[in-house]
């Protein structure tokens, strides 16, 4: 107990002594992690909205929910045979559709509860040989028996994917640079802290304090900075999540499938808190290395 209170006291004293540096460290951790978390949040929203449209899949053929077995089988063999138009396809039966439905709406248990596999239509996700043939596939297959409707990847979604790819990359690089600078700031804070307490450290080593005993208060100091910055970032991410959700909900037409879920935000929050703690501890370790070696 007395050790814990000793460490807590020493850490607090040191944090207060370097108040400005401490605040600078916390703010850079905060900004870089908010950026980083924001990108992840945006990415997860885009992923939710574009999950179907990957690996060259350009259109999805929905069968009527009451389509007969033979209609479905006929569709399969037609797609298999149609080498001129169809590169590949994937068949989703009622259960597969239900599994995906559950995954997409896992944070809305009431909706899942009220839905059964048989109300979800069977479908084929089709990747044409080239994207330009999409129109042709749609025309050819629209009239086949048992087909309810055909949905194609909207051009807007693809534009959005391309645009967000660049935005994501740029923000990712910026947040990495900021993370690095917050690491250096913490390293510097810890160096200043060890310098301010060099006489105490000298005495501690002289009377035989163990190395970890000397180090712990400084490690804790870095950890506290990283953790506070990350905790604040978590709060900002949550606010961001609420804002994004509201914007997306008010634009039902295009973005109806773009959603950020609570569990996305929590997962991202936990990730950035871990990153913050790692940055803080790593910064301390580097800051301590030179001063305490030997």
């Amino acid at each position: 107990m007395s050790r814990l209170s000793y460490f807590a006291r020493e850490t607090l004293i040191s944090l207060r002594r370097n108040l400005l540096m401490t605040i600078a460290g916390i703010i850079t951790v905060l900004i870089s992690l908010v950026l980083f978390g924001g990108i992840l949040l945006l990415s997860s929203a885009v992923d939710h909205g574009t999950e179907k449209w990957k690996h060259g899949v350009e259109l999805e053929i929905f069968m009527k929910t009451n389509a007969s077995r033979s209609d479905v089988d006929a569709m399969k063999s037609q797609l298999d045979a149609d080498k001129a138009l169809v590169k590949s396809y994937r068949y989703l039966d009622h259960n597969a559709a239900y599994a995906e439905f559950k995954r997409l709406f896992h944070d809305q248990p009431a909706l899942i509860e009220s839905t059964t596999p048989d109300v979800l239509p069977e479908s084929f996700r089709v990747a044409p040989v080239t994207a330009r043939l999409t129109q042709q596939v749609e025309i050819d297959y629209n009239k086949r028996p048992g087909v309810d409707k055909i949905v194609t990847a909207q051009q807007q979604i693809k534009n959005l994917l391309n645009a967000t790819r660049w935005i994501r990359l740029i923000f990712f690089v910026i947040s990495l640079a900021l993370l690095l600078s917050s690491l250096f700031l913490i390293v510097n804070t810890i160096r200043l802290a060890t310098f301010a307490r060099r006489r105490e450290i000298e005495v501690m080593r002289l009377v035989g304090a163990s190395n970890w005993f000397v180090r712990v208060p400084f490690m804790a100091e870095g950890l506290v900075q990283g953790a506070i910055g990350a905790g604040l970032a978590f709060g900002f991410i949550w606010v961001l999540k609420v804002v994004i959700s509201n914007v997306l909900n008010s634009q039902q037409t295009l973005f109806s499938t773009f959603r950020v879920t609570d569990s996305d935000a929590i997962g991202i929050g936990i990730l950035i808190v871990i990153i913050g703690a790692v940055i803080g501890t790593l910064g301390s370790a580097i800051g301590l290395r030179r001063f305490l070696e030997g």
Partner: protein
Amino acid sequence: MIRFEDVNKVYKGDLVALKDVSVEIAKGEFVFLVGPSGSGKSTFLKLLLRDEVATAGRVLVAGRDIGRLGAWKVPSLRRNIGCVFQDFKLLTNKTVYENVAFALEVIGRPKHIVRTQVPQILDLVGLGKKTENFPTELSGGEQQRVSIARAFVNRPLILLADEPTGNLDPATTVGIMRLLDRINRTGTTVVMATHDQRIVDAMRRRVLELDHGSLVRDQARGVYGVGS
């Protein structure tokens, strides 16, 4: 207790600090280490503290070759060696009591030990009435007493003193030497590096003289300079 076997210490830039030094110091001895500045006295003490490692030869403390001690075992060596310096190395933001208690706290001694040991040792060095003063409020001699209390509060086997009276006037010096003598009588081995001819001559203890890193004299009841 302490044994140097053909110890050599060469610093960077071929600066030879100790040359083929072999000496044995028994438990409970009081030894003066004399010689001009740069003769290797401080290096001798630093090797004992494992602040430096011998370039060649072995330094043994209580039978253990401390040059081969792993870094994580150095603290336990230092808990058995108290240390006193010319500049006291007291923490100015802590009181007399806190300075001494600090030495026990940072090696993880429980509170009740700290509470009983610290007043005891401060009484021993004659500062029982100044426990709440800060170092800057004390005279040089008193500050050195605090530093000795801090070095001795953990009852080390060995006490090293590097010019402990270098900053003190002759009258104060006598008091400090009495204190060191008293500590020596409890069975603690004391090794003291000094320039002070008067105290060496007055105490008549074993004298080791270093010159340019070589041990040139080892005299059982010696004086500071040969023939003086």
